[in-house]
């Protein structure tokens, strides 16, 4: 909306006409805190003149509008309804209230930042002596009053702000400048003044204490280092992968679909980290010292699917890794043994278990950190429901740039608003008893069906796994061909993946049938059902693998490798079925919709289901890391391919979801799910394996040990024997790691901290409630005062 230039021309007359009582008008200007300053500013500061002109034009234009009450901008009935019979003078004062000027005028913003700077300075440092008089003043408004009472100081906000900014530290100052919502030209002039003032201020400093030679050297060194760091940062920025693709996706589908791809990227980062640590400390070192075993089988191609065959005796799996110190001359391979040589020994079993342990630990910290951060962002203390305002103010996704998508977004917002309104109306009408009962029956039936299917799936998977084990043994006994044996291994992963593919659709049907009230609840219910199914099936499979090893250990010489292979197959099958799902669920469905049903609609991209699939795949990877150190590499490959395939399919086949999606809220949920059932489950499984399960006797880095954990213990004992001067290390081990008291103590402290935090949050809530009440009272007071004001002005207007 633009203000016509002609506004300023007839402003004066209308203003005169509107407020006949000039003294009153002046009074209003005196009481309002900013107007006065602004006018002075415009006299004193040539830089500010432009903004002031604009502002004056605006405020005057506003006055004119308010006063005349007939111009088209203010003619609407709504504003009349709020203030039905306020006189023009009252409206004028209302328009000049500080709470309203802050949203439009530069001077008000500057003074707000001035106040903030004062606060910041006082918090960060004790004020220097020469500023004590000013720092005693709490706010600009008070200063303003002093001006009115005729104080000697004739400075405006602008220069005051400059002064205040100068007393801040450089980082705080630039932060403040950056965050100031004024135009860049204004910021530049502020900065220029700052620079100028500072150089004059600093000059005496220089003569007083010149920097020493060492200081100069340090300065030069730091500058050089910083330039290097800057260069590195900009390199990192330019390396940002998929920047263009992500922009394309968000431009068409908005933030909600983007959150899926960002999640995929996060997972990719986790896997790259895991892969790199394993590659450096385990895989590469083992590759440098290959063990004596020969790989006899030839590559047939089926290995890519099954992971068995010629892959078995490679770096892929646990069984290949050796159980001795790698660069120790006393290996069983070489005969010349001279212990006590100078170089560092590289103990493979230790490296294996420590690398996995440490990388899991770091992953855990990263996960908890990102989870807590996103919780902090999406959860605010004392936030109450306020759907309409948030919906209207925050609904628009500025990233969406395609015309068609913009229209779609328009449509979505409209339907959502209508739904919200309808919901509100239906809430006011209570449901009849009969309908309530019907609803209960439908809900309980739906849940019974979903729980029933989960139980059914579990039983089916369990018996199928046992059956396949038997079939596999039989085929081995009958000595059928190797390819056939390997193909048999694929049956279980195929069945489980098929189940994972089909069940979500069943749950979608259920959801369509039960018709939850709110779309958000619908999403959560769908996620919950899918999650339960996937996690229970995975738990069952873990149990199956660990128990199977007992029955298998006699003939299968390396159960770890076979579990690793099994997990490899699951990862690959998961990928294949995701592709199938993309093909069937998106491409074929679109073709059917377009060609057969002649509808313009396209299938929607189901974010929740797709994210759950990602989480499932990641769980498989984490489960398998111990048995198949190169599994993260497979996962990386899978994720990269998935990114491009999903993106292509999305662009070609899908339309953006019409459901209400609160992207950041959902990403909090996703990262929590990744942390809680997924990572925690995998960590528990691995810890159990390390602590309590006996490794196979004939292969792998831990072949001589009772459990994997034992190897660490024996290493500590050896260390104690060989070098007694690092007893502190063994002491730490004995007293902190093995001692349960320490653990209890730490968890007790943690619980206490959590309890305290909860209490603090409770206190905050209470204070927020009180403050809200207070604001409500203030609002009432304001209304009361406005009415009083109106009384006075009304009287004066009727009898001039």
């Amino acid at each position: 909306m633009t203000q016509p230039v002609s506004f300023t021309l007839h402003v004066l007359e209308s203003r005169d006409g509107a407020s006949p009582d000039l003294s009153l008008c002046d009074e209003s200007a005196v009481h309002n805190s900013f107007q006065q300053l602004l006018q002075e500013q415009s006299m004193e500061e040539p830089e500010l003149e432009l903004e002031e002109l604009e502002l004056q034009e605006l405020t005057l234009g506003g006055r004119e509008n308010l006063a005349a009450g007939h111009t088209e901008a203010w003619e609407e009935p709504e504003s009349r309804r709020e203030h039905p019979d306020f006189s023009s003078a009252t409206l004028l004062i209302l328009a000049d209230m500080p709470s309203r000027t802050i949203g439009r005028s530069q001077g008000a913003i500057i003074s707000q930042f001035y106040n903030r700077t004062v606060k910041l300075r006082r918090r960060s440092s004790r004020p220097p002596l020469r500023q004590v008089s000013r720092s005693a003043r709490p706010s600009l408004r008070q200063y303003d009053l002093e001006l009115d009472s005729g104080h000697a100081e004739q400075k405006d906000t602008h220069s005051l702000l400059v002064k205040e900014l100068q007393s801040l530290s450089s980082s705080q100052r630039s932060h403040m400048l950056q965050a100031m919502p004024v135009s860049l030209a204004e910021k530049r002039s502020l900065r220029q003044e700052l620079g100028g003032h500072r150089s004059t201020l600093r000059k005496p400093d220089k003569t007083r204490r010149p920097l020493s030679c060492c200081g100069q050297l340090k300065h030069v060194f730091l500058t050089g280092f910083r330039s290097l760091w800057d260069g590195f940062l900009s390199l990192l920025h330019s390396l940002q992968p998929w920047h263009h693709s992500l922009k394309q996706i968000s431009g068409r589908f908005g933030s909600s679909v983007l959150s899926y791809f960002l999640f995929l990227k996060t997972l990719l980062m986790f896997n790259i980290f895991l892969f790199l640590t394993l590659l450096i400390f385990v895989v590469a070192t083992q590759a440098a010292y290959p063990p004596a075993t020969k790989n006899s089988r030839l590559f047939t191609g089926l290995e890519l699917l099954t992971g068995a065959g010629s892959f078995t005796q490679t770096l892929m799996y646990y069984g290949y890794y050796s159980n001795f110190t790698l660069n120790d001359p006393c290996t069983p391979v070489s005969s010349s043994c001279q212990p006590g040589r100078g170089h560092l020994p590289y103990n493979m079993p230790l490296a294996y278990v420590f690398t996995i342990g440490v990388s899991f630990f770091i992953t855990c910290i990263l996960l908890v950190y990102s989870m807590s951060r996103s919780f902090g962002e999406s959860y605010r203390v004392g936030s109450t429901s306020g759907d309409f305002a948030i919906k209207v103010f925050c609904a628009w996704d500025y990233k969406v740039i395609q015309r068609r998508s913009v229209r779609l977004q328009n449509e979505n917002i409209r339907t959502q608003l209508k739904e919200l309104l309808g919901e509100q109306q239906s809430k006011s009408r209570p449901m009849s008893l009969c309908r309530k009962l019907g609803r209960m029956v439908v809900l309980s039936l739906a849940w019974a069906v979903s729980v029933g299917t989960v139980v059914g799936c579990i039983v089916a998977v369990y018996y199928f796994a046992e059956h396949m084990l038997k079939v596999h043994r039989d085929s081995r006994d009958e000595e059928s061909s190797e390819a056939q044996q390997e193909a048999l291994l694929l049956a279980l992963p195929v069945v489980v993946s098929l189940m994972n593919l089909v069940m979500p659709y069943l749950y979608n049907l259920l959801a369509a049938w039960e018709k939850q009230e709110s779309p958000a609840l619908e999403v959560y219910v769908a996620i919950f059902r899918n999650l339960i199914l996937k996690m229970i099936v995975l738990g069952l499979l873990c149990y199956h693998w660990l128990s199977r090893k007992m029955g298998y250990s006699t003939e299968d010489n390396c159960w770890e490798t076979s579990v690793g292979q099994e997990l490899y197959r699951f990862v690959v099958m998961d990928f294949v079925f995701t592709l199938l799902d993309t093909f069937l669920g998106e491409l074929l469905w679109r073709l059917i919709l377009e060609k057969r049903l002649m509808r313009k609609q396209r299938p929607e991209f189901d974010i929740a289901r797709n994210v759950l699939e990602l989480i499932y795949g990641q769980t498989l990877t984490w489960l398998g890391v111990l048995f198949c150190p190169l599994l993260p590499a497979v996962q990386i490959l899978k994720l990269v391919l998935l990114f491009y395939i999903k993106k292509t399919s999305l662009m070609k086949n899908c339309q953006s979801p019409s459901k209400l999606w609160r992207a950041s809220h959902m990403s909090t949920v996703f990262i929590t799910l990744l942390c809680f059932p997924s990572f925690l489950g995998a960590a528990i499984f691995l810890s159990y394996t390390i602590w309590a399960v006996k490794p196979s006797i004939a292969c792998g880095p831990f072949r001589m040990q009772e459990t994997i954990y034992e190897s660490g213990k024996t290493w500590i004992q050896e260390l104690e024997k060989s070098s007694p001067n690092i007893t502190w290390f063994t002491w730490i081990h004995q007293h902190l790691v093995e001692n349960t008291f320490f653990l209890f103590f730490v968890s007790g402290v943690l619980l206490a901290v959590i309890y305290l935090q909860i209490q603090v949050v409770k206190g905050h809530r209470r204070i927020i409630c009180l403050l809200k009440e207070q604001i409500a009272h203030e609002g009432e007071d304001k209304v009361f005062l406005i009415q009083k004001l109106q009384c006075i002005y009304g009287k004066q207007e009727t009898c001039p």
Partner: protein
Amino acid sequence: MPHSGIWVCVGAQLPACPAPGSLSGPWALPWSGFLETVVDAPGGRGVTRLRQLGPAAMGGSASQLPRDLLGEYQELTFLTKQEILLAHKRFSELLSKEERESILQKRVPKSKILTLPELRANPFRDRICRVFSTSEDGDGSMSFEDFLDMLSVFSDSATSEIKSHYAFRIFDFDDDGTLDRKDLEKLVNCLTGEGDETRLSESEMDQLIQNILEESDIDKDGTINLSEFQHVISRSPDFASSFKIVL
């Protein structure tokens, strides 16, 4: 030239520059992406920027952005150096060949700004131009600095506070410093589409606006002022992620 001071500082008065230790500190780490913006002492920075800008940055666009100016922009906005250079390139593409020589003085009319694909379809495009333009006659034309200002507010790293401030000004259609019923109605119409068949019905609109005011008008004066608006926004973490324009 306002920055002559910088050169003096670099060359002759090196010891007068603030002690380097004060430049980096615990502050710098969380903002490592904007390290350069945190460090604002002009003295030390002049040299650094000069070195690292080298040929790569300069070769990118047709006409060059002065180095010290680039540094200043970087310090005053939330944009990184790459983003500023990209903005420079995109902005110079809006100008004709002759005008590109004096890119910093030229204003691009609103109609041209709105040909940018990032703004073309946005229902708030006119308001965005109006809010960020510093043009005196209110025609929404933009100078390069206005353009940078806009990108800075819509950038990834701008704080939620500054974003909500500008969102408020964008939604404040009549520029009177507060969102009243009229503004809200216009806002909702922008969101649902301007056409007659796409609008909400009058009773729906009334009900909607009534609800919005009930939820967010804390002091019950019938309008939503900036702090009330920011209060609503602070409850929605999605706002900062959706109030973004990527160039």
